[in-house]
């Protein structure tokens, strides 16, 4: 196991107290990405077909109907305040149309990776994740991205974190306690596991055939020279401000190479705070 310590711009500078996880095997973690599919075939099938150009809402709904829990989550999300449809979504096919194929695929991925089981996740995982997702979605137009895609990107950004936590629960909790902020934590993850959670996410998403538009920003989130990762960096920053007590804000203008200014952040934070809990409930409760 090669363990490297990469400098992460924007991260809180701390000494590296954590040793590399002695029992951590990245290959095994990567292999588990494949084996998950066998355990949740419906979710795996949706992940596989959802981004095909010839996929229709009917096809997706037909597959989705076989997984009652997932189907009911999609229905719930479609009727949530986030999509503004006020309970008018009464069929699964229409729900798929309303939330969009990428979102259905994202929800299937959440199910596939057991992200819907909070007991197996790091503390406050979903509070952070929904904040990242909503912030990414609200900021998307400023970065020339589709809000819905960036919402999904934000929802899945921490799949890698969950995988790391699955494989090293004790170690990860210790890591999280020392580095609660996203950026610092990613640096600590690289030190301990040789790879950050978001990078691991990008590998997993790429393996599952997610488009480069979602994989690229995850791989580039810590590369301050890359504009690809700027939106996600800003989303993590906003989520940290909302969810991590005592967090010292970093100027978003620096994080985004001037694409986002601090004076635009306030209304976004307000909106995220307002919608995060609703989105979390829609994503998790069956």
């Amino acid at each position: 196991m090669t363990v490297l310590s990469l400098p992460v711009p924007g991260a809180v500078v701390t000494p590296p107290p954590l040793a590399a996880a002695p029992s951590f095997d990245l290959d095994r973690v990567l292999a588990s990405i494949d084996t998950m599919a066998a355990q949740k075939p419906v979710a795996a099938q949706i992940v596989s077909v959802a981004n095909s150009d010839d996929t229709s809402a009917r096809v997706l709904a037909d597959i989705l109907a076989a997984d009652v829990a997932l189907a009911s989550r999609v229905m719930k999300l479609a009727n949530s305040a986030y999509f503004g449809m006020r309970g008018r979504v009464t069929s699964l096919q229409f729900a798929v149309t309303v939330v969009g194929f990428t979102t259905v695929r994202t929800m299937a991925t959440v199910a596939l990776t057991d992200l819907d089981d909070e007991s197996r996740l790091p503390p406050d995982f979903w509070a952070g994740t929904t904040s990242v997702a909503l912030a990414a979605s609200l900021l998307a137009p400023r970065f020339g991205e589709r809000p819905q895609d960036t919402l999904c990107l934000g929802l899945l950004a921490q799949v890698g974190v969950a995988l790391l936590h699955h494989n090293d629960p004790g170690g990860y909790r210790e890591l999280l306690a020392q580095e609660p902020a996203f950026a610092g934590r990613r640096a600590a993850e690289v030190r301990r596991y040789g790879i950050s959670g978001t990078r691991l996410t990008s590998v997993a998403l790429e393996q599952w055939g997610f488009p480069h538009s979602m994989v690229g920003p995850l791989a580039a989130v810590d590369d301050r020279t890359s504009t690809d990762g700027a939106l996600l960096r800003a989303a993590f920053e906003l989520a940290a401000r909302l969810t991590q007590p005592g967090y010292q804000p970093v100027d978003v203008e620096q994080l985004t190479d001037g694409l986002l200014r601090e004076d635009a952040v306030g209304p976004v934070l307000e909106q995220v705070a307002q919608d995060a809990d609703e989105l979390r409930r829609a994503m998790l409760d069956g």
Partner: protein
Amino acid sequence: MTAVPTAIADARVAPEIVSSVFYGAAVSNSLALLVAEMSGDVPRITWGNEGAMHLLGYALEDLRDLPVASLLPSLRGGELKLLLRRERTARMSLPVRTASGVFTECVVLCTPTPTGRMWNLRVVSADNEQERALRATADAHERRFATLTERSPIPTLLSEQGMRLAHVNDAFCRLVGQQSEQLLGTGWMACIHPDDLDHVIEQVAVVLGGGDGEAHARLLQDDGGERRTVIRFAHLFTPGVGAGFVGTIEDITERLAFEARLAHQANHDPLTGLPNRTLLAGHVAERFVRGETGLACLFLDLDDFKVVNDSLGHAAGDELLVEVAGRLRAVVRPGDLVARFGGDEFVVVCEDVDEDDAVTLAQRIGAVLAEPVRLGGVDVRPHASVGVTVQADEHTCAEDLIRDCDIAMYQAKNGGRGRITVLDHQARAEARDKLRLVADLRDAIENREITLLYQPILGTADGVSTAVEALARWEHADRGPISPVAFVPLAEESGLIGPLGALVLDETCRQLAEWDRLLGTDAPLRANVNVSALQLDDNLHALVVAALDRHALSPARLSIEITESALMKDPAAARCVLQRLRDLGVQLAIDDFGTGYSSLAHLRHLPVDCLKVDRTFVAELAEGHTEITTAVIALAGSLGLSTVAEGVETAELADQLTRMGATYLQGFGLARPMTGAGAAAWFAQRAAPRPPAVPPAPEETLP
């Protein structure tokens, strides 16, 4: 999902085939293949095919021993492991550094050999020309669309998913006075009036399902304003993404306001601003439920309004109407309707009242109206006659209710000024009966069921009849014969006198023409036709000319009889009309002379030929009172006019009138009114010494 690689060593595959496949792969120019192997702790390239050399720009010698990391610098640190997996294939999109140092985006598929120390890398450039062209085309389309919507003056929305907007243009931002950031996502929903939002969402649901939709919605503006709009939605589908919509907004605020103004004008009286008759009818109809009660109408007619108009001028009259309208509005309960029915008539409609409530309201109105109003320096106390009707079982429709309160108002009016009358049932029955009779009369005229009888007029000098008077008769199918004394005034009141007069004139001319054909020179020379006072206008001349022309008769064949009272209504106008008829050659007679208090000065100037002595004066002769008849005959004589004595019932009367100098006689005792055929027979018989041209008719009797 990735597949677990299987061993390629297959004993069943002949070495020649393996060799052939390898050769094909080695020289392929379109397929870039590399083989990497662990050299110490560093994976290095050990082999590349023609395609790889072409893609990366390296010679085979330069590729050999090249660290894989130097080709894939984005895989920093330990990340190379993510690609070079031990047991599984891996697929990554990443930039590959070529020999010139330029990066090219590639998809790299990596398959490990079973040893786990050697990997087969297939590199596919993601940056080929065709894809670039496709991307450029798609980008150009996107830019065109963005430019189109951005610069369009039509407010436009673009949804990405459900009600969530991905884009709003400047025109929409201007319309609602907000920044696009505030509107994206579901933010725009706050701009839709809460009462309209459900409908908008329903339409969006239809559109997301594949249809088209349209919603009328009020949009709330940042400054508290409100715009009325039509939002038209069109379905949008993006493959692999899902459904959204494009919404275009038409601001119809001004148009609706204009329409509302027009509608208001159509339904309101411009002088008082009150609802007019049209709105009244709709208002009552909306509230009228047959069999229920509680709906009341009060019909008000201002007393002596004409006096105000005539004495103080129309401006003062208008001022009074505006004042009355204001007082009525102020005195009724909230929710009651005050309408101007027309002229000086107003109607108040109230709900949930009984007769006592309605009368109390009428009294309150009367009291408020009676307050003095100063018009042209004069204090006027307006009074109104008020008819009150509360809906009852006999009312079958809203019109019944309004009609009944109108009838009640007339009852009030007949009772004297400032009265309030609740509709009397007997009066309603009579009024309705009259309405039915008017309808029947209209039908009778249209169907030419009004028939004419002709009574000969005989000369006193020779006892010969040369003229007849046409007398209209109506035989009602249910009621039997109806006297002209009843139906002529009815026709005058209901606007049917014109058609009735035209019918009589035309039928008389037709009959004259027919007599001419049957009797030749023995036919009556002239027919007298009665004309109502209401017909005495500019149209009469044209009507007479048309009837004469239609039947090819000379004007001298007609004599128009007009009552003395009709002439005295507007003597100057009457004289003008009569003069035109006289100029035409038509003869003119004054009917019922002596009953109308006509001015002798006027009489002298009227272009008439004959005076008809009223039958009441003729009847007095039998009682020895000869004064008036004598005077009338003498007057006619001195003015050079002939006379016709009406109502001559006996031979004695005929003798007496002849002696008194009457020119003509007409009466039951001389000849009864007859049908056209009867008259033909009568004239034929009297034309001695020739035999009659037509058989004698049975003797006619007066109705």
